[in-house]
C-alpha cells in the first residue's frame, strides 16, 4: 500500500525541522537550501505553509524529461530523479506547474522530493503533526472524520 505526504498548514509553526531533516537525509548536512520541502511564511496572515511535490500520477516533470532521468518508484509512487542520467536541461522545472522540482547550481542536476524511499524524514521530524505520511487512498480521512464528528449521531427511530 502506498502512502502520501499529508500537509496541514494549520499545525505548522515554521520551525524548519522538516527542511533540516530533508537536507540531512539526502546530503548528510544541515542545510535548508538543500531541502526538497519548503516552508512559506505569510507573516501578516499568521500562517506558515509547508509545500513540496505531490507526486502527480501523470507527472509533468517525468513526461517532459528528454533523457528519462525521472522514473516512477513503483514501491512508493514517488517520481525520482536519477542524478546519473539527468543532464540539467531544466525542462522539467518549466513543466512542473507547482515549482516543486528545482535545478541546483552546485550539482548541475535537478532535485525533488523522493519520499525518502518510503520513510520521509520531514514527516518523521515534524514536531506538531503538520506533516504526516498517510494511506495514499485516504488523504482526506482526517478531514472526513472531523466533519463526521459534527453530524447528528442520534439514531433514527
Amino acid at each position, binding site marked *: 500500500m502506498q502512502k502520501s505526504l499529508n500537509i496541514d498548514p494549520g499545525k505548522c*509553526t515554521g520551525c524548519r525541522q522538516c527542511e533540516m531533516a530533508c537536507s540531512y537525509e539526502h546530503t548528510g*548536512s544541515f542545510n535548508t537550501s538543500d531541502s526538497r520541502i519548503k516552508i512559506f511564511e505569510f507573516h501578516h496572515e*499568521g500562517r506558515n505553509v509547508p509545500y513540496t511535490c505531490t507526486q502527480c500520477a501523470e507527472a509533468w516533470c517525468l513526461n517532459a524529461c528528454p533523457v528519462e532521468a525521472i522514473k516512477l518508484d513503483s514501491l512508493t509512487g514517488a517520481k525520482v530523479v536519477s542524478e546519473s542520467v539527468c543532464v540539467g536541461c531544466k525542462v522539467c522545472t518549466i513543466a512542473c506547474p507547482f515549482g516543486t522540482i528545482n535545478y541546483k547550481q552546485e550539482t548541475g542536476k535537478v532535485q525533488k522530493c523522493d519520499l525518502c524511499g518510503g520513510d520521509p524524514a520531514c514527516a518523521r521530524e515534524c514536531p506538531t503533526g503538520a506533516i504526516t505520511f498517510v494511506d495514499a487512498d485516504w488523504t482526506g480521512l482526517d478531514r472526513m472524520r472531523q466533519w463526521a464528528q459534527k453530524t447528528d449521531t442520534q439514531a433514527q427511530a
Partner: protein
Amino acid sequence: MALARKLLRVNLTQGTCVVEPVNQDWVKQYLGQRGLATKYLASEIDPKVDALSPENKLIYTVGPLTGTMAATGGRFSVVTKGPLTNAIACGNSGGYFGNELRSAGWDMVIFEGKSAKPVYLFIENEKAQLLPAEDFWGKSVWDTEGGIKKKHQDPQIRVSCIGRAGESQVLFAGIVNDLHRAAGRSGVGAVMGSKNLKAVAVRGTQGMSDIADPKAFMAAVKAGKKVLADNPVTGQGLPKFGTQVLMNVINEMGASPTRNHQDVEFAGARKISGEAMHEKRETDGKTHLVTNQACFGCTIACGRISRIDETHFSVKTKPEYWGASGGLEYEAAWAFGNANGVDDLEALQYCNLLCNEEGMDPISLGATVGAVMELYELGIISKEEIGFEAPFGSAEALCKLAELTARGEGFGKLLGQGSKRLCTKYGRPDLSMTVKGQEFPAYDGRALQGMGLAYATSNRGACHLRGYMVSPEVLGIPVKMDPKATEGKPEMLKAFQDATAVVDSTGLCVFTTFAWNLGDIQPQIQAACEGDWSMETLLATGERIWNLEREFNLAAGITGKDDTLPPRLLNEPCKTGPQAGMVAQIDKMLPIYYELRGWNTDGVPTTETRARLGL
C-alpha cells in the same frame, strides 16, 4: 566540529572585510556565541571606552549548535559594550537569521570603527561587502528588511537591522531580525547606529556539515526533543500561551511590579494575560492571538503572532499595523501594562509593534514610561514638558510616549535615555527602577528574594535572563524554593548563572531549560563538537564566562557597590499579596554569593579564582 570555521572582521572606518580563523584556544575555553564573543571583545577593546565611540566594537556571533537540528538551535547573539549600562552587553535573538549566518559559513562578524556614511553588510556565503545604506537610513526595521530583499531581488535573504531608534541612539535600542525577533536589551542597537551600520543582510547556502559525530548527535537531539515535548511547560504551556503563561501566575504570587514598583499586584493583569489573548474581542469577534510561531529549529514554538484590533484608537487610521505580527510576549505585556498600570491589551500590542518596527527594547521603554508617570503624578514633570497628561493607567499617554521615543521627537528624546538618566535629571534617581542603569523586567525583587540577588549581580544590569530564579521560586524547577527565604539562594543563583552562560554559548534557547538541565544539553554539544565537553568542562566554562564578564565590568569602572537594588526595593515592603511585608534582603545574600564565587569582599575575583578558571 564546533566553531572551527572563520570569522569576518569588518573595519567600518576603512571599509574593509577581512577573513580570519577563529581562535581555537579560546573555543576550548569559551565554547562559542556569548562566551567566545565576550572573550574577543574583552581582548580587543579597552573596557573604559565610550560605548558609542568608534573605539567600541560590535560582534555578531553564533554557537556550535546554531544551524543544526538541535531543538531551538537557531540562536545568535550580539555582544558589545552597552551604552545604557556601560557594562558588557549581550543581546540574544532567535528567528531565522542565526541559521542563515552560520549557513553562509561564518561563526562571527566583528565590526570595528565607524563608517563615514550609512552602510550595510551584505553576505552571500563567502562573499562579504559593505554597501551604501543611504536609501535605508531613516527607515524602519520593517521597511529596511523589505527594501533590502527587493533591492537584491532575493526574498530568501535574512536581515538583522536597526530602526530609527538605533539610528538616533536611543540608549535601549535593539537590533531586530525577521521583523519581530530581537537582540533586544542593553542598547546594542544604539552601538550599531553609532557606527552608521544599518543592517546585516545574509544569504547562506552552505549549511552545516562538520558535526563531529552525526549518529550520536542525532540520537542526543532526538532524546532532547522528547524531553521538551513531554514537559508540561515546554510541551503545553509555552506553545499555548507563550511566555504570557506567566502573567496571572506572577501576579497571583504578589510578585508583579506595578506602577513603577509601587505595588506588587496589578488588578488589570487578567485583561492583558495569555488567557485574554485567546478570548474573542467584543469589537470584532476575533481573538487577539492568531497563532503561535517557532524560531528556527524550535520544537517549543512559544512565539506569539497577534492581530491588533483595527478599531482601537492607536491604529484606527493606520492600516500598516492591521496585519498579524509579533507579540505580546510576557515581558513586553508587563512593561507596557503592569509597570504603567495600563490594562488595555491593544494599546500594549501597539507599543510592542512600535518596538519591533523601530528597534527598541520594550522592557526598558515600558519601565521608563513608568518612571515618567510617577514623576508626573508627583508633580515633578509637568504636562507642559511632556506635551500632554501622563498619569498611571493612561493608555493614550503610553502610546504617545512610545511614538515620541521611537521617532526621537519632543519629550521622547529624554525618554530614550532610559529611566536612570531621566530620573537623575529630575533630581529623583531613587525613582529609577534599574540596576547598573538597566530597567527591571517583570518579576519583583522583593517578592522573590533570589530574583533580587539575580538582578543585583547580573553582568548586564537588571535582567531575568542571566539567572532565572523564577524557576525555583515560582515554578519549582529544578526544586521548589520559598520565595521569601534567602537561604540557599546564592548557591542556586550561581548554578543558574553559570549554566545559563553555557546555554547562551551553544546556539540553543534558554527557554529549553524549563525542561532541560545541563545533562540534556551536554550530549548534544559533545556529539557536535570535537574535544572534551563533559559536564565538568561545561560547568567550568560557564563559570569562566561569568567571571570574564565580571572582570570586563570591573575594568569598565563598575564595582561591587553597584551590586545593589534601588532603595524602593530595599526599604519599601511589598504592600499586598502573599509576599506582603517583604523587602529585598541583598545584604544577607551578597557576602555568601561573593564567597561562593571566589571573590573578595569588594566583589573582585581573587588571584586563586582567576588562576583556577584560567583567566
